[in-house]
């Protein structure tokens, strides 16, 4: 297995994405509008000294700004390139080449998301500045490293979900429903609307048990220094377990899907 080809795919995706940087900036700007409302709301709720479920005002505002940005990298979705290729039969080209289809699209997604996330910094940083001295940084270099590891695993896990959601196109004539699930239910379960601690206890317990918390809530907790040491190790273990489990599941789904594939058109 040679990896260089996937680096090249990612590089080409960056090249393509770079052509649309203004478009990226605008779409991120629009996507950040609800964030403004959210921040104003929490500002009002907590006041300068308020705490809620163990979150200070600074931690809460940092949580929302950070997760808004992070979710661009660790949020799964139905990847339209894959569903299109299955519907239109262009998947055939990929099956012809000596490559892994999952890795090809992972490289594509990384290559197109990284420029988007960079451009997104331009939108998020002013928000962070507005928080001022209350903004929370990871408490140590070690915490930064722990955060980095949890984000990397979250990115990989998010892709496994993206791949799984997209492969539903082998069976579904329209992946719109799956897409709604990915776009609205998953972020909620991942902790993008509320930190999971703020949900009623049974719901919070359920959400903690689901893999989606590993995408956003867990890395954010690590960033804020609320999870470290043994708890961090345990969390990373959970991330890894989900990652391996989904990877195996995807392999099975992929092989079943291929048998259904009709390579229409052409």
């Amino acid at each position, binding site marked *: 297995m*040679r990896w*260089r*080809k996937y680096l*090249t*795919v990612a590089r*080409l995706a960056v*090249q*393509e994405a770079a*052509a649309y940087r203004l478009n990226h900036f605008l779409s991120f700007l629009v996507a950040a509008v609800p964030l403004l409302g959210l921040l104003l709301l929490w500002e009002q709720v907590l006041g300068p000294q308020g705490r809620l479920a163990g979150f200070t005002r600074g931690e809460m505002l940092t949580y929302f700004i950070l997760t808004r940005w992070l979710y661009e990298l660790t949020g799964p979705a139905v990847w339209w390139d894959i569903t299109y290729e299955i519907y*239109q*039969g*262009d998947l*055939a*080209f990929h*099956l*012809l*080449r*000596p*490559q892994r289809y999952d890795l090809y699209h992972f490289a594509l997604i990384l290559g197109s998301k990284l420029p988007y996330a960079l451009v997104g910094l331009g939108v998020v940083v002013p928000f962070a500045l507005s928080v001022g001295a209350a903004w929370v940084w990871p408490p140590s270099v070690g915490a930064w490293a722990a955060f980095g590891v949890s984000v990397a695993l979250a990115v990989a896990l998010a892709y496994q979900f993206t791949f799984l959601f997209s492969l539903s196109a082998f069976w579904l*004539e329209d992946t719109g429903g799956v897409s709604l699930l990915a776009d609205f239910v998953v972020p909620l379960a991942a902790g993008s609307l509320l930190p999971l601690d703020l949900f009623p206890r049974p719901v919070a317990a359920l959400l903690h048990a689901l893999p989606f918390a590993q995408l956003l809530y867990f890395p954010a907790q690590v960033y804020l220094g609320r999870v470290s040491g043994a708890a961090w190790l345990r969390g990373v273990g959970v991330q890894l377990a989900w990652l391996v489990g989904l990877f195996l599941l995807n392999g099975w789904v992929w092989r079943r899907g*291929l*048998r259904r*594939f*009709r*390579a229409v*058109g*052409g």
Partner: protein
Amino acid sequence: MSSAIVVRNLHKIYRSPQREPGLRAALRHLIAPRYRTVQALQGVSFTVRLGEAVGYLGPNGAGKTTTLKILAGVLFPDAGEVEVLGFEPWKGETAFKKRIAFVMGRKGQLWWDLPALDLFHLFREMYEVPFPVFRRRLDDLAGRFRVTDLLSVPVRNLSLGERMKMELIAALLHGPQVLFLDEPTLGLDVMAQHEIRALLREYVREQGLTLLMASHYMRDVEAICDRVILLDAGRIRFDGPLSELKARYAPFREVRATLASAASAVPGAAWLVERAGPRLRWRVPREQVPMLLQQLTAQTEVVDLSVQEPALEDVLREAFAPNRAGR
């Protein structure tokens, strides 16, 4: 091993959901979906020798593309045996993928916003082609196809013909031994069709490639292939040299003559299909042609005379005529 492709008793069945329009039908489909099965291939068998160029002909829906996709490892066969260069295509082994190429005239694999050259480099890495070899092949192919200046132009700015040339280059850069072509000249203007045909013929012969080409344009097949396989409704109707196909399904020649003056009685009246003053046209069994010509020159004064082989299009119309209504 002298056979490049071996196909034995190949079957492929498509099952597609069948649904009438309307809400009620949609609901009924949810509860009790009904499926329509289509026998795309019903026991197809043939072999192709190494270095042979074979045309794969048949009306729409005959199963041509399905066969090609199974041979290229894109589709699973439902029954039967398939071997390409000793590999079972559906296993998708890397060693197999490196030895074949498949070009679809209806689809492109190049990225719209990037120059073709970027993708060529990606394919070089995927197929692990050593750089000097890649360089040499690219220079050669781009030179032949006269697109050297266009390699750095984004694909969306290329004409359809130029794009097809790039697609062909993309497919040939890793040096495949077996080439599957599906309608490679589809949608191109006559000039571009002619050019691509000539380039393909030259390259395939020179490199000794094994070629299986499905096409609607009979000229593609006439120009490039020595042998044709005729497919109709998932079954092979004919397999042999092009000349034999013509002899079997079109044992006629078309004779045209222009006489010095309109004659009242002309020879071969039974085969006469058109008569406009001094201009005459016959459709004559092949073996009768010499006699007709003899009588013609003996009995009348001929100003102009031609004997033509039927075009492949006419041959096919003849071949598929009896079975058409049944499909």
